[in-house]
């Protein structure tokens, strides 16, 4: 009986949320963006992945970085913390990058450089800088705030919503606008194309492979192409798991010099 009640209540709550969508067949651009943000960056309450990033330049020369990334959410759509522990190349092993992502203010970022025995805070005023030399930006790793752009639904294809995003502060970014393709079923963004100030497409971010892990659609392979420079970076995510119960204290300065055991495979 208790269970039945609970089920009924759940259905009721679910209906409350689903109702607006079924009422108007088409969600608004802002709604799509909000859901996509959750799908892409807030799966589970925390998560862990081993990442291999391969950067290939215009001439086909490639170099790679291997790191473990731990994530912990304060709340869905709210503040988050990332702990990035480098394993390769061996000369940067144990290097740690820690981010406290804030919704209402600039992020906090720390960098621990073991060879220099130095913990350094990195000002995060501009998130569109390279992530350790790759074609990914910090913003690609931690997510661009939906509030930074105004969104517009361009079209609805068989599979995707296609949106156009225009920055509210054009001077703060290097693009003039970008478009995203968002899967209608999962709300996972599968592609983003950026136009430069002259309106030319110069940057493409794509999810090359998506798998369902612990019930969450998860990008296990993604790629950024810099069309102007002719370079690209492919990230492969392995050993992905969610809801590990990561402790909040891992994401503090104390753990920079001594990595938590969770960074081991």
């Amino acid at each position, binding site marked *: 009986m208790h269970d039945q009640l609970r089920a009924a209540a759940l259905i009721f709550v679910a209906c409350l949320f689903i109702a607006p969508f079924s009422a108007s067949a088409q969600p608004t651009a802002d709604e799509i963006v909000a859901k996509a943000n959750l799908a892409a960056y807030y799966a589970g309450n925390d998560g862990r992945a081993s990442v291999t990033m391969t950067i290939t*330049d215009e001439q086909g020369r490639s170099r790679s970085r291997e790191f473990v990334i731990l994530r912990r959410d304060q709340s869905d759509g709210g503040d988050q913390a990332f702990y990035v522990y480098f394993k390769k190349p*061996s000369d940067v092993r144990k290097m740690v990058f820690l981010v406290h992502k804030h919704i209402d203010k600039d992020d906090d970022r720390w960098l621990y450089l*073991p*060879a220099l025995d130095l913990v*350094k805070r990195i*000002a995060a005023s501009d998130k569109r*800088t390279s992530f*350790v030399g790759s074609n990914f930006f910090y913003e690609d790793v931690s997510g661009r705030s939906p509030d930074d752009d105004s969104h517009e639904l361009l079209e609805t294809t068989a599979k995707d919503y296609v949106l156009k995003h225009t920055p509210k502060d054009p001077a703060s970014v290097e693009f003039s606008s970008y478009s995203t393709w968002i899967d209608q079923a999962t709300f996972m963004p599968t592609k983003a194309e950026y136009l430069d100030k002259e309106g030319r497409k110069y940057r493409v971010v794509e999810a090359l492979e998506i798998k369902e892990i612990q019930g969450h659609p998860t990008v296990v392979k993604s790629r950024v192409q810099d069309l102007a420079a002719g*370079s690209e970076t492919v990230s492969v995510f392995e050993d992905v798991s969610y809801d590990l119960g990561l402790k909040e204290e891992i994401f503090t300065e104390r753990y920079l010099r001594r990595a938590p055991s969770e960074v081991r495979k």
Partner: protein
Amino acid sequence: MKVSGKLVQFSINKPKLVTTVMVVVTLLLGALISMVQVDTDPENMLNEHEAVRVFHHLTKKDFNLYDVVVLGVVNEKNPDGVFNPATLKRVQELTEFSRTLADPNQPEKRVVSRNIIAPGTVDNIEQAGLGQVRFEWLMKEAPTTREGALKIRDNAMANPLLKGTLVSEDGMALCIYLPVTSKDFAYQVRERLLEKIKEFDGEEQFYITGLPVAEDTFGVEMFYQMALSAPLAMLAIFLLMLLFFKKLKMIISPMIVAMVTVICTMGLLIGTGHTLHIMSSMIPIFLMPIAVVDSIHILSEFFDAYQRIGDRRKTLEHVMDHLFMPMLYTSLTSSAGFLSLTLTPIPPVQTFGLFVAVGIMLAWALTILFVPAYVMLLKKESLADFGIRKNKETPSDQAVAKHLDWLKHFTFNHCKLVLTLTVLVILVAGYGISLIRINDNPVNWFTKNHPIRVADQVLNKHFGGTYEAYLVLESAEQELDVTAIADRLVTSINNNAFAEDQQKVSRAALGLLAEVKDSATSPEQFYSQLAQQWEASQDTANDADYETWAQLLDTLSAAKNRGQIFKQPEVLNYIASLQAHIQKTGVVGKSNSVSDVVKKVHQELFAADPQHYRIPDTANGVAQCLISFQNSHKPEDLFHLITPDYTKANIWVQLRSGDNMDMEEVIKDVERFFSEEPPPIAIKHNWAGLTYINVVWQDKMVTGMLESFLSSFVVVYIMMAILFRSPLWGLLAMGPLTVTIAMIYGIIGLVGKDYDMPVAVLSSLTLGLAVDFAIHFLERSRNAYQRAGSWRKALDEMFAEPAQAITRNVVVIAVGFTPLLAAPLVPYKTVGIFLASIMAVSGVATMFILPALITQFENILFKTKQQ
């Protein structure tokens, strides 16, 4: 009848046919000129496959480098220099404007927007309060306040990578570096920038320079110059001939010969698929004087003899009989001089030599065939008053005659004095030649007040230098085999001093190592197999052992990455001391290397403390500084200075001067440094960059020209000996030529003019032209001697018609090329001065030295002849 006679007869008998054929051939060949393909790249002075060019291109590829247009902005009126909001706004506007520059017809020719170095496009690592560092664009937006502008200056000045490169050390100026995908787009970039700059009305000055601009602009202006100078020279020659011969109709023929020669030669050049290069563009200027010389001889003699003989056919036969052999030989020797250029290792010079040689022979054929035909085609009446009639000499005729008469007596009576003076001249010239300085600089091809030259001066005064050379370093360590690698690895593991509780792991590791050592067949296999084995052990280890395995794996990858020498602190410190060393020369204003990046990042990581402006102590420290640097907006900037695999490094050397001798000084200095202070690890070094390439082709040019010059000297002597059927007379013919060359190069040395590309090429012209007069003079002397029986009597004949012809030639050509002196391009001036001097000196040398020598050695010369 001799071949010469047949040819002349043919032309005299069939003047219309000769003329028609000439016109048709000229039109056909002239049509080919429309297919012209221009090549203004001095790099093509070297064969495409030349090692230095191959390496230069490899370097550009390895380090993602482009040729650069330098746009300088200087503000000397504002106390803050360019660092004021108004100027910076314009700088920002220009930067944005330049980003989009591309050739509308060939979009692959463009400014490489991503690699622009400008305040708005470079990243700066800076302190951001609260112990934070930040990567921020040096100038994200143009500042609106004085404070904002000054902050940009201070940030740039605090960054050793930018100071002296982007911002001048006095803070008054800044430079925008615009990389271009193709050097021959540089001129267009300059033009479009100038157009944009016209819109500004600020107090700052804009300057555009850089080798690609100089080279490409030279190419463009060269063509205007050709279109202007060649006709002007033609006009001057025409006017002088008019003065001498008075008869417009007669002097048109040498003009036609010259034009037809130039058109046909250029048509052949272009028709055979050659590009019009800086060198080949000079062909018309070289051909014109040579082409008219023979015609002037004919006209001059015709002029002197016509009224005496009274019949043009007979006069022509008389004149051509005299002149055929000397003209043939002068043409052959001139051709040989130019043909010798094909021996140089420089393709455009080879083409140039070949086609001038062809042109000379063409001019000879035209002179022999067309000039008589032309004379025959004229109406008889129009010749009625042509030539000298005894009592109707004009002042100019009289002046020439009077001078020659004086000369005749002087050389005869004072032959010893003439010869003594000649020896003196040669001695002084020899000293002058010893002073010759071999040097070139494409920027100096423009005259002093040309905007490019001015820009060059201004910017190199303010900055570390706008001339770029790249010193590329790479490991020269030997490859090791599996056994050697394994042994080294064992040693370094044993050196690790593992604690007691780690020994178990290290023993296990060494066990695996021994196994893999035996099975692996290549170093790659050894590394990958061992890594696999160790990683497998690591995966199953407990937390404490995990860490030990990780350390072992680090040791392994350090061994594997032994070739990544530019992470080693001792190597980076070596680079830094090399940079400090070359900086002392004064020519190098600035150099940038990966060492500078590491030091700067290290300093900023440690709160901008100047004490920390140094290379960290470990390779990992270096690697971590560099990965920190890569968190910027443009991480790829690092790879202009180092390859991503750390196996090659590039020192970007900025020189204040593009003079080859200055670059050579730097090269020597680097060699000295490497031999006096050997690097800690075996390192190869090699140069690239346009400034260096210029040195290489100059070297080839100078040695190549010298060799070709010497060989043509020998060839001309052999030809002379054959022509005069006497080695002694051959030697005599070489006399004036030797004196001329000695004198001209002596003067170059004495006045301190650089021996550069145009001067080098002109040496072959000297040879070809200077021998001409001697041939004419000697050939006629012998004929005259035979008729007269003694030199004293032969002199009267010699100093009449032949001497007249030589004198007229000297004056016409020498004066005819003076319009070139007004050219805004220095090589054209040089050609002008040279041609005038060659004609003047070789004329004077012939007229003084030869008669004096013959007078002195009359017995020997004519005795041997009689034998």
